[in-house]
């Protein structure tokens, strides 16, 4: 048989220039997208910082809400957010990690499990205002918690729960099969394997994913509005059934005032909110790096 070369290297080499040109164009498109995003972010940050920075005084942290902008502060909102998060974090973490462990390690992989799984993933995409309505119906009215820290905290916990579950599931699924086999092979029970092998390996991933989810609970406004959290609070809560306000509510309130001074106060509040979020994300990154190095 005659060996006819259908593929000619000369022809292929002559096309390299064209392929490289395409390569450059595509790189340009992606670079433009990145620059565009960065510019928007910088403009936004510049506006907020230039507006709000002069208002970041000691008094701003020390004062409660006030009708007079020069006396208004963010104390109630910061403390209120802390109270709320002290409900959100344990609730979402226990329910979320528990569900993830059950689905990954115990549940049989049948139709029902797949159906539950699909619903959890879909819940993560439900608008936050819907969770607000759920919280209003169940926690505020049925359970009679009123517009309290507990009602808002549980509502926010439900909001972030699907994200915590999915993040924890991914972290648990990433545990090497070989390590679980080693544990079972030594006669360990399922719980011993989960406690001594799966969780220690998965916890950095669970923590990273959960912290990102919790930071969402700090910034969300819509569920708080629907649950009926007040915006003008001039006292600190002393228990979980007390009324309170939170950072996003305070900011929302100030932006809706006509006076320019209040807009600047809102900008100062946003700086605080951003600082908290950046801090939480840094903790997540720190945890991830620390355990990856090991």
């Amino acid at each position, binding site marked *: 048989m005659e060996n006819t070369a259908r593929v000619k290297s000369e022809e292929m080499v002559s096309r390299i220039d064209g392929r490289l040109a395409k390569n450059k164009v595509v790189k340009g498109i992606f670079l433009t997208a990145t620059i565009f995003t960065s510019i928007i972010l910088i403009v936004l940050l510049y506006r907020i910082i230039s507006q709000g920075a002069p208002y970041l005084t000691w008094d701003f942290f020390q004062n409660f809400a006030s009708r007079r902008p020069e006396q208004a502060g963010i104390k109630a909102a910061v403390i209120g957010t802390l109270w709320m998060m002290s409900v959100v974090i344990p609730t979402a973490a226990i329910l979320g990690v528990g569900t993830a462990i059950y689905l990954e390690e115990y549940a049989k992989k049948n139709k029902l499990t797949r159906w539950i799984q699909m619903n959890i993933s879909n819940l993560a995409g439900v608008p936050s205002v819907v969770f607000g309505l759920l919280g209003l119906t169940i926690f505020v009215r049925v359970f009679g918690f009123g517009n309290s820290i507990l009602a808002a905290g549980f509502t926010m916990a439900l909001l972030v729960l699907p994200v915590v579950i999915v993040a924890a599931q991914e972290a648990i699924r990433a545990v090497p099969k070989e390590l679980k086999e080693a544990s079972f092979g030594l006669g*360990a029970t399922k719980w011993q394997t989960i406690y*001594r092998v799966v969780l220690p390996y998965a916890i950095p991933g669970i923590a990273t994913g959960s912290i990102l989810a919790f930071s969402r609970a700090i910034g969300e406004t819509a569920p708080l509005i629907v649950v009926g959290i007040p915006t003008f609070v001039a006292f600190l809560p002393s228990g979980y059934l007390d009324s309170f306000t939170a950072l996003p509510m305070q900011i929302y309130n100030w932006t809706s005032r006509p006076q320019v001074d209040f807009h600047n106060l809102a900008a100062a509040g946003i700086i605080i909110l951003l600082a908290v979020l950046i801090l939480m994300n840094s903790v997540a990154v720190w945890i991830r790096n620390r355990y990856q190095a090991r």
Partner: protein
Amino acid sequence: MALTAVNTTKNNQSVQNEELFVYNTKNLNLWYGEHHALKNINLGIKEREVTAIIGPSGCGKSTYIKTLNRMIDLVPGVKTTGQIEYRDRDIFSKDFLVEELRTRVGMVFQKPNPFPKSIYENIAFGLKIHGIKNKQIITETVEKSLRGAALWDEVKDRIHEPAYGLSGGQQQRLCIARCLALEPDVILMDEPTSALDPVSTLKVEELIQELKEKYSIIIVTHNMQQAARISDKTAFFLNGEVVEFNSTDTIFNNPADSRTDDYISGRFG
């Protein structure tokens, strides 16, 4: 109960012989869903011997060894019929807890799989899950197990350092030491040297020779020379069936079945 009666009558003829068996497999069939992976396996495995299981990829040899300590339970959709008796107890019976079986029967896996902990903690793991908390006992067992796995001299100065710092061969011997800590009766080895270099392989093979004095060893290997070097008995698996089971000498020098001959002389597989 009926089974015990059958055994007793059989035992009358050769009481001594029966007692030497650690594992007795009777008409074992296994399916992965629709796939019939093990077909009518009958094997008697004697104690204090090295039994090698050889055969081409997909012949069911790994499936079989994983059935012996029921690690196969971790695979969804597996169905078995027939019996495996470990020291005259049916391993599939409800009265024989899988945790007990795996405590008495240790397993070494294809890829070294130490825990991401220190060398010390890797061996202490097995003791801790069985409720042994006494530090002195644990420390003594760690040393004894490492000596037993011929690893002590290499690691004695760094037993509190991460196990991942060891070479592949050392990690595999650590996994063997981890088994030894529980004083098992049988050690199952699923291609324990397939991920190791020739020098490490040799060390593990030498170790197996030493361990055979105290333990019964069942080893799956794709390496026929290894089976010939280290085992007393060899079972040749093909397409889920035991083609031939005999002393290693007979299998390699005078096989009864032409398929065994073809395989060991390298004509397929």
